């Protein structure tokens, strides 16, 4: 019997006055990898922000449960502390704040929020180096300011490093493939795959099938006009690759 990790039920959300999500339902169980595909403007990024609790994204109906707990009223840091992680499509630069410092602050703030002891400097450093190595992240890069002057690939590897160190149970990857060449994509995908496990869930949001060759999903959903309009297995992604989103959108209006 699979245990639900993330349950989204009849979710409606708007940005300013514009409704974007219009009755979206989706359940990710432990151990599952779900992919969400869809055309531009379907609401893919909005979905990731709403799950993470970004301000300005107003939920007008429905619910989001995490391990059975309603999270729609929780702020972003509380959601993070219970195990929700969002890998950004465009990771944000924070000048002057070292990558390692940022990571240590995040790890310890989460531990604090959960009532755990903070990691000491040496314990943290060891864990960080161990996590950084397979991602080809050097000590020099860890000293640089968060994402400042990073290449597209470095930024995404940095996201995976954070994901590894924060050890969330539910990861949302928002267009992680954007801006990556094939080699970088492989490193990032390997990093994500290494984190897959029987108690973890992934929601991989992407526009292109390509990423799913590397991070192979258990389920594929098509998001269009704020709703999931079609679900299937991996073969659905390949089918979309051939036919494009036009058919689906036409199907909606027909």
């Amino acid at each position, binding site marked *: 019997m699979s245990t639900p990790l993330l349950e989204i039920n009849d979710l409606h959300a708007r940005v300013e006055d514009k409704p974007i999500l219009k009755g979206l339902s989706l359940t990710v169980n432990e151990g599952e990898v779900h992919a969400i595909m869809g055309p531009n403007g379907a609401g893919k990024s909005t979905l990731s922000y709403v799950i*993470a609790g*970004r*301000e*300005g994204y107003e939920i007008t109906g429905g619910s989001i449960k995490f391990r059975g707990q309603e999270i729609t009223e929780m*702020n*972003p*840091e509380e*959601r*993070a*502390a219970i195990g929700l*992680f*969002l890998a*950004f499509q465009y*990771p*944000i*630069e*924070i*000048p*002057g*704040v070292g990558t390692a*410092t*940022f990571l240590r*602050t*995040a*790890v310890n*703030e*989460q531990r604090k*929020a959960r009532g755990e002891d903070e990691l000491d400097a040496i314990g943290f450093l060891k864990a960080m180096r161990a996590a950084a190595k397979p991602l080809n992240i050097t000590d020099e890069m860890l000293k640089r*300011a968060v994402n400042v002057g990073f290449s597209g690939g470095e930024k995404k590897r940095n996201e995976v490093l*954070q994901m590894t160190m*924060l050890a969330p149970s539910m990861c949302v990857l928002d267009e992680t493939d954007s801006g990556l060449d094939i080699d970088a994509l492989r490193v990032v995908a390997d990093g994500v795959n290494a984190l897959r496990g029987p108690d973890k869930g992934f929601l991989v949001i992407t526009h292109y099938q390509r990423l799913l060759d590397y991070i192979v999903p258990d389920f594929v959903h098509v998001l269009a006009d704020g709703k999931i309009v079609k679900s299937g297995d991996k073969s659905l992604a390949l089918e979309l690759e051939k036919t494009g989103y036009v058919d689906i959108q036409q199907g909606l209006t027909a």
Partner: protein
Amino acid sequence: MVAVDKTKEQVAALGEKYEHGWASDIESDYAPKGLNEDIVRYISAKKNEPSWMLDWRLDAYSRWLSMDEPNWARVEHPKIDYQDAYYYAQPKSMAEKPKSLEDVDPELLRTYEKLGIPLEEQKILAGVEGYERKVAVDAVFDSVSVGTTFKKELAEAGVIFCSISEAIQDYPDLVKKYLGSVVPVTDNFHATLNSAVFSDGSFVYVPEGVRCPMELSTYFRINAENTGQFERTLIIADKGSYVSYLEGCTAPMRDENQLHAAVVELIALDDAEIKYSTVQNWYPGDADGKGGIYNFVTKRGLCAGRNSKISWTQVETGSAITWKYPSCVLRGDNSVGEFYSIAITNNRQQADTGTKMMHLGKNTRSRIISKGISAGRSDQTYRGLVSMHPNASGARNYTQCDSLLIGKTCGAHTVPYIESRNPDAQIEHEATTSTISEDQLFYCRQRGIPEEEAVTLIVNGFCREVLQQLPMEFAVEAQKLVGISLEGSVG
């Protein structure tokens, strides 16, 4: 407050014989309100000053009478009635003083708590009745007890570190030679006032070739009553010597004296280096700016000798009004001036601060890194002058001026003056203005960092180049202070 704890331990180790110190004869030691020649004479007499010192003060006073308050700074305050102030050991009327911590601005107390200041110390800092500085803290900072430990080591090195009052008695030749040599008596209205009525301050002399064996901190010298109001500091680094001086305290200090006008003079002779670090955290007033300190400071260093260096580092977070331009006169060839500044204003605070780099000698170099952070309804101005004189061939300046705005109701202004009268001199000026973006905050929060911690992290990142210049023991506290100063600025 690490330094304070250390000092306390040392004092405790020295025994408790100073517990009741000197409270007795200080009680009635004050002059009436207002300023006139008699008050100047009174101050000088109280300190048993020699006649040359009194003459110097009287000269300053008579010049001050004909001077006007500067009004070019971008700050606003009601007109100051200089006759309505006390100029020596202000008697603190019991009616005005908080009776207990309950009467103190709760925001101030919260800050103390965050800095981890013990309750007894909090009462002193907040000026609670019965917890006057002279009774409790001066016993701790008694020059005899603490001094014996630190002064011994300093004496072995030949370094003189004492109050300026002591220096006037014990080292009159040095004081006569250097006092007013960098900031002339008539330099500006506030400096002239200070020259007439200065209460006390520090004096440092580092002899030729000596590297001062420790960071000199205001913690470790006698804190005569009221030094804060019209403080006078004079530091001389003789040829080839080095000294690092720390001024201030991360704890916000409440003071009944609204008007503060300090003067600091630094002199570096050939191959000497002076590093002067300040954390200024005077009471900024409540959220509406009521009751805060007006801080009008004149700080200037003279690189008198060849290859000398003066470096100012300041973290300015306190006071309702800050008017302050630590400057360097680069007279010696190849001398170097540096100014690293963080100024944070929140609520109703106003700061007009910056520096002046006067390049007189050949191949002189200066570097200005200014980080201004404005939040709340505060207003902040960077005002700087880089001046290349005709003889300053090969001189170079680099200026970087960054402003960070938090919220929509604060202001940041940059007023750089650049004068070059030497075609050989190079001047670079870079300036940026940015905000803490919603993207940055969300990114931090998604990683589990709560909003206020995120602001602290981002602002500390913004200030990093300057924080790195602070001596280690100050840097950690200053980082904490950055966060505290900005509390309530978001959300």
